[in-house]
């Protein structure tokens, strides 16, 4: 319950983070998040595309249709400079937030 609520608001940050490694298409992004989190994080695939399109509208991502090595044509996303700035800001914000949470929970122990 707590995990799904936390995850809901962090999908754009997770998307920006995995795209920091290079361009990916939607399904790959979902898989990459799952892999990099050690299967701890698996955001709803239904929330992935609205987040991608919203970031694209804000100019954080650009998308391009391209033929894949297998399967159908896919839409690849990559970070723009503005997206890089947003990622840095989101990262700093998350560090501060998670650090604060950690300090509080550590004290509670």
């Amino acid at each position, binding site marked *: 319950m707590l995990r799904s609520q936390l995850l809901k608001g962090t999908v754009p940050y997770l998307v920006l983070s995995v795209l920091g490694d290079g361009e990916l298409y939607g*399904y790959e992004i979902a898989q990459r998040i799952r892999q990099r989190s050690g299967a701890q994080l698996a955001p709803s*695939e*239904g929330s992935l595309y609205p987040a991608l399109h919203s970031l694209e*509208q804000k100019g954080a991502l650009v998308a391009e249709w391209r033929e894949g090595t297998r399967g159908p044509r896919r839409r690849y996303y990559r970070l723009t400079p503005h997206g890089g700035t947003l990622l840095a800001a989101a990262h700093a914000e998350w560090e501060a937030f998670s650090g604060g949470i950690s300090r509080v929970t550590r004290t509670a122990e």
Partner: protein
Amino acid sequence: MMNAREQFLAEVATRLPLPDEVRAGVLAELDAHLTDATEDLIAQGRDPVQAEVEAVARLGSAPSLARELARAHRSRGQLFAAAGAGTWAALRDGTLATLLGWLFVVVGTIAATATLSAASRLLGTRIDVGFGSSWNTVLTALGLHLGALFSGAAAVRAAARRGWRLATEVRPWVMAAGALAWGWFAIVLLQQPLNWVSVIVLALVPVTFLLGATFERLRRPRPGVVAVSLLVVAVLAFGLTAALGGSGGTGGGHFYEWNDTQHGYAMIAPWWQTPGSSEPMLFASSDSGWQAPGGVSVTVEAANPDSLGRLSGFRLEAWRTAQPADGWHLELGQRTPFAIGDVTVDGTTLSGTIRFNQTPGVTWAEVVLTGVGPGGQRYLLTSFGPQQTEFRGSVVDWFVALTSH
């Protein structure tokens, strides 16, 4: 029979209010995602059908996904575009449909008039259907109804398309703005000769707009449909007029004579007499009247300067009279005139103007000159005969007048 994937994509498509090319791109992307997800699940050992169902389920509900995707594509600029496109579409389709409505009215009226004229010649008598100008307002309003209907539908369609929103999302705003605009035009701004029927028909114009906005799929008819409809209207007008035949009239003139026995002068005031004398006498040596906007202007030459000096408080008064067909007489039960006009005195000449088209429901008015005698009694001095009239103003004016009379 659609499979789970096709069904899901079709449902997203119908709920995604985006331009065609953007929607196609989104659907292609979701389709590619489902292909990848299904293949992965099959590779993990799922049955192909089950794998597809599971892949679809992982994307969540189609309405929710469509709503979130639509939200992701929204911008404030689209709202302005939606408002502009909706307004333009409403103006364009509203104007065209109103003109089309009036064209129907004109064709119908011409057909009806021609039929009546032919019938009159055949019967050798004048047929008078008593079609006053306030009934023309009803026809005018019917044209407006057609305009309101199509403008409502067009505004919702255009605003939804340009705003990248569903019709259900823009409808309340279009309804509010359009009903206000049409209401302002038809009820407040439009000044026309009115009767109760025209007041009701005009007041219902915004309701017709709401009806059009509710059924946004309603589109302007094609020229062929218009032509056939015009023909039908003409034939119907011919047929109905011929069948009804209008109300017969003799065509003879009515000569009004004020008669205290027949018309009950006591409702107004005692007939003009020289105060203190039992002998009636004429007040005016001559009088003339001519039509003024919404009433008449009159000039009276007093026959007896002496009598003029003994009277004061001159004014023009308008009283309701019966329809010509019922014979000329004042309507019973009146205690006060329904309209009053000021009179100025210059030597022995009295002149004034009275406006009597501001009272709902009055169709004939008797205009008289009155003055107050030495005893404080108001006397009727002379009459200018019956005048045909109709209320002229907006629907709002009509109701304001109703409450003030």
